[in-house]
C-alpha cells in the first residue's frame, strides 16, 4: 500500500464518521487530503479516472481511498449514465444554539409586524 494511502487512511481513522465535512474540517486536514477536497469541490463531480490522475497513483489505490471517504460520508456517489461519479459531501450548517426564548421573541415580533401590514 502506498505511503500516501497509509497517511490518509490513518487520518480518516482518527476522524469520527459524520454527516459530511464542514469547511472548517477541510482547513484542518493534512495537505494531501485537503488538496484532494479542494480539487473535488472545484470540479463539481469526478470519476475514478480523474481521481487516479489527480492522486498520481494506481486505480486500485484511488478506488480504495474513495470507498473509504464514501464509507465515512465525506464523499457521496452519484450514478451518471452507468458510471459512478463522486462529489464532496458537505455537512449541513447547524442552527445556532441560543436560548429558545430569543427565537420565540423574534418570531412573535415578526408575526406582529407581518400582521400589521
Amino acid at each position, binding site marked *: 500500500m502506498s505511503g500516501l494511502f497509509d497517511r490518509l487512511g490513518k487520518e480518516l481513522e482518527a476522524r469520527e464518521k459524520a454527516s459530511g465535512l464542514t*469547511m472548517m474540517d477541510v482547513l484542518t486536514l493534512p495537505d494531501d487530503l485537503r488538496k484532494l477536497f479542494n480539487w473535488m*469541490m472545484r470540479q463539481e463531480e469526478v470519476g475514478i479516472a480523474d481521481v487516479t490522475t489527480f492522486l498520481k497513483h494506481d486505480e486500485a489505490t484511488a478506488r480504495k481511498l474513495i470507498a473509504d471517504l464514501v464509507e465515512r460520508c465525506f464523499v457521496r456517489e452519484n450514478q451518471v449514465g452507468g458510471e459512478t461519479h463522486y462529489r464532496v459531501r458537505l455537512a449541513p450548517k447547524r442552527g445556532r444554539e441560543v436560548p429558545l426564548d430569543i427565537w420565540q421573541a423574534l418570531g412573535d415580533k415578526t408575526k406582529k409586524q407581518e400582521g400589521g401590514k
Partner: protein
Amino acid sequence: MSKIVSVHSFRGGTGKSNTTANLAAIIAGTGKRVGVIDTDIQSPGIHVLFGLDEEKMDKSLNDYLWGKCPIEDAAYDVSPVLKIGGIAVMSGGMYLIPSSLKAGEIAKVLREGYDVNMLNDGFRDLTRKLNLDYLFIDTHPGLNEETLLSITISDVLIIIMRPDAQDYQGTAVTVEIARKLEVPRLMLVVNKVLPSMDFDALEQKIEKTYDAHVAGVLPESEEMIALGSSGIFSLKYPDHPLTKTLRRIAEQVMAE
C-alpha cells in the same frame, strides 16, 4: 468559461458590498453577463445598491436553500440600473440574487441552518442557467461556512481591507486561509484610504507584507459617503478618480 469572483473582508464596514456592486456593474457594462449573489444571509444589504425594493422581493436565496424554488427563480434582472447620466449602458445583463430581508426568515435560517451542498450546487446552477460570464459572491465578513466555501470554489478572490491595524491582522488570517484553500488568483484592494496618504508607498508595503498583489488603492471619497449606498458609484460618477481605479481593478478581474 464562467468565472466565480468572491469579494471578502475579515471585518465589516470595509466597503465590500459597494466594491462588489461597482465591479459587477463595470464588467456588465463591457457586455458580459454578470450575476451577484448575496451570501451574507445574516446581514444582507447589497440589494440596496441595486435599488431592489424589498416589497418586490418575492423570492430570495433563503427560498432556494429551503428547497422552495430553483435558484434562478430568486434572480432579479437589475440591468435597468445600468445607466450613466440617464442613458442606458449596453450590457450583457446583470442579475442579483438577494438574501431575505424578513426578520423571521433570517431568524429561521440562523436557527435551523441549511444544506451547504445546496449552496455549492446553487453557484454552479446559476452560472449555467443564466449563462453568466461572471458570478460575484458578496460574503459575510469574517470566516464562516459560506465564506470558506465561496473562497474554495472561486477563480478570483478579492480581499478588501482598510489601512487599519485590525484590518491588517484580519487580512493576514484570510490570506493564509485562501492559500490553504488554493484560490487560483488572490488580489487585495485597499479601500477608504485618506487622499493625503502616499498610495504608492502603501501599495508596496501591503504587497510586501502579504506577498500578494494589490489590485487597487481606493481613496476615501466625500461623494461615496454622500451617496450612502443609494446607488452604484461608478455609474453616478463615471469620471471620478475612484471610478477609474475601480475600472482598473475590473480589468484585472477580467484578465485571463
